[in-house]
């Protein structure tokens, strides 16, 4: 009886729950009273400009950074080595062990989790196939390309068959092929019921992968929801981008039914009815423009502003 109730609570209760989570470095408040809950089996994203506090938040989930204030539970427990036992981590910067080969890196990591050798080698074979690294098993990590290193880091994060995988910018700096390959692996994981937490600067990545996300800036959560809901809430349905150098002859006030944002190289015109605007632009000689549906990037820019960070 009690076993079955605890099973029910564990499968429906959130994997991560944070209330009033706060991190202060000296006088700098880096994470400022944020609340979030991450449901089991979902992919949850943290979006935000450089320095928003994403990595710091993830480090608190891992116990690598003590929180200044707030409540934080993972699997319903406070953060501890026990919670890390059930988590996998892909850090922002690769930290593979350069003294070892690909397969040795995985064996070593398995030993940190005290996974028995035989079991570990079964998992390693599977993970090498999963990340398409079987051919590279004896390669030294320094000889791997950036994409291979990242895939190895992902394989390493999965060695303990984690229920929750934390990925800090998993595809930053990788070519499109690798990025797509990683997205498809992450989708597979989520399909198997693994909960994913992801930070990213790529809006496409967030739109494709995240069931829910928060947009952070200056340590605060600006909004929270599904990608669709966020787009609907913050921007008009359609966008027309006009190349600035071709827009000389346009009088912005004359553009029909739209809100114009100047991004330097382009003018972004947000609108619910694109047809009159398109007509107007087609009648203006030399104007180069592009029509597309609004996306997360528009939400991101609207919420976090356009000035440079750092």
């Amino acid at each position, binding site marked *: 009886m009690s076993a079955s109730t605890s099973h029910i609570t564990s499968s429906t209760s959130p994997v991560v729950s944070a209330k009033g989570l706060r991190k202060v470095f000296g006088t700098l408040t880096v994470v400022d009273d944020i609340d979030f809950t991450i449901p089991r089996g979902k992919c949850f994203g943290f979006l935000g400009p450089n320095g928003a506090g994403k990595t710091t938040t993830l480090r608190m989930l891992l116990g*690598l950074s003590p929180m200044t204030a707030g409540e934080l539970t993972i699997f319903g427990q406070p953060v501890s080595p026990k919670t890390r036992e059930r988590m996998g981590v892909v850090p922002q910067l690769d930290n593979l062990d*350069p*003294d070892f080969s690909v397969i040795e890196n995985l064996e*070593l990591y398995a030993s940190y989790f005290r996974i028995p050798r035989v079991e570990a080698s079964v998992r390693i074979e599977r993970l090498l196939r999963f990340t398409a690294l079987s051919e590279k098993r004896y390669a030294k990590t320094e000889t791997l390309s950036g994409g291979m290193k990242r895939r190895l880091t992902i394989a390493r994060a999965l060695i303990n068959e984690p229920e929750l995988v934390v990925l800090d910018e998993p595809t930053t700096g990788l070519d499109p092929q690798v990025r797509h390959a990683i997205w498809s692996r992450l989708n597979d994981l989520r399909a198997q019921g693994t909960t994913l937490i992801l930070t990213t600067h790529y809006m496409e990545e967030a739109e494709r992968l995240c069931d829910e996300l928060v947009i952070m800036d200056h340590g605060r959560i600006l909004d929270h929801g599904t990608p669709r809901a966020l787009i609907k809430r913050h921007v008009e349905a359609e966008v027309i981008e006009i190349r600035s150098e071709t827009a000389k002859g346009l009088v912005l006030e004359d553009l029909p039914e739209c809100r114009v944002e100047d991004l330097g190289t382009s003018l972004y015109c947000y609108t619910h009815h694109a047809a009159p605007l398109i007509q107007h632009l087609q009648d203006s000689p030399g104007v180069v423009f592009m029509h597309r549906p609004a996306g997360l990037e528009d939400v991101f820019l609207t919420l976090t502003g356009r000035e440079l960070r750092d």
Partner: protein
Amino acid sequence: MNDWRLPSAGLGALVVLRRNVLVWRKLIGPALVFNFGEPILYLLGLGLGLGSFIGNMGEMPYLTFLASGLIASSAMTTASFEGTYSVFTRMIPQRTYEAILATPLEVDDILAGEMLWCGVKSLISAVAILVVASLLGVVASWNALWTLPIAFLIGLCFAGPAIVMSSIVSNYDFFSFYSVLVITPMFILSGVFYPIETMPTLLQTIVQVLPLSHAVALVRPLVANQVLIQPLLHVAVLLVYTVIGYYLAVVLVRRRLIV
């Protein structure tokens, strides 16, 4: 505050130790050349050369005197090198600890593993010197094998302060200060090359607070097959340095990494 809580290392320490053993095994050739080459140079060069002028020192042939001193000092320098350059490399530029800390292991386990590894390396250096010294015929009896666990303890004793250094420096250059201001003076003044009793009293008192003189006081009689004087005191000093060193190292590495 929380950084000061008492450490509690578990079996994870052995996993970290195993990691370092595996790396060492890959480079065993150069490592052993160094382990054997250094004592051969010292014992042949200094020991035979100087020894022919000096004859006996401390009621034993000079070569025995020097070999026993070198077992202690080499255990010190081996652990100090490992605890500074190697530990710093793994902690900061290589970010190996960051990777390990994403697993159930904690700083406490990692540093316990590192200290054990320093002990093992010191033991290996002692084996090398003992082998060379035996071949030169200056080891008096099988009792000399007792120097091996002592060398392990000397390694633990010097590992702590070295790791403390690693936890506070910003780059490798600072290790020269530690070497020049701490390790080298101890090496020269702690009775490795000549008896402490020949030095001014003040210097003798200072040297007796430092661990290397106690290490020498344990190793030398074992190699020369003489009676140990106050062995428990010497072991206790090395143990106290080990325990305090480990504790401070854990606190400071927590401060550096868990931020």
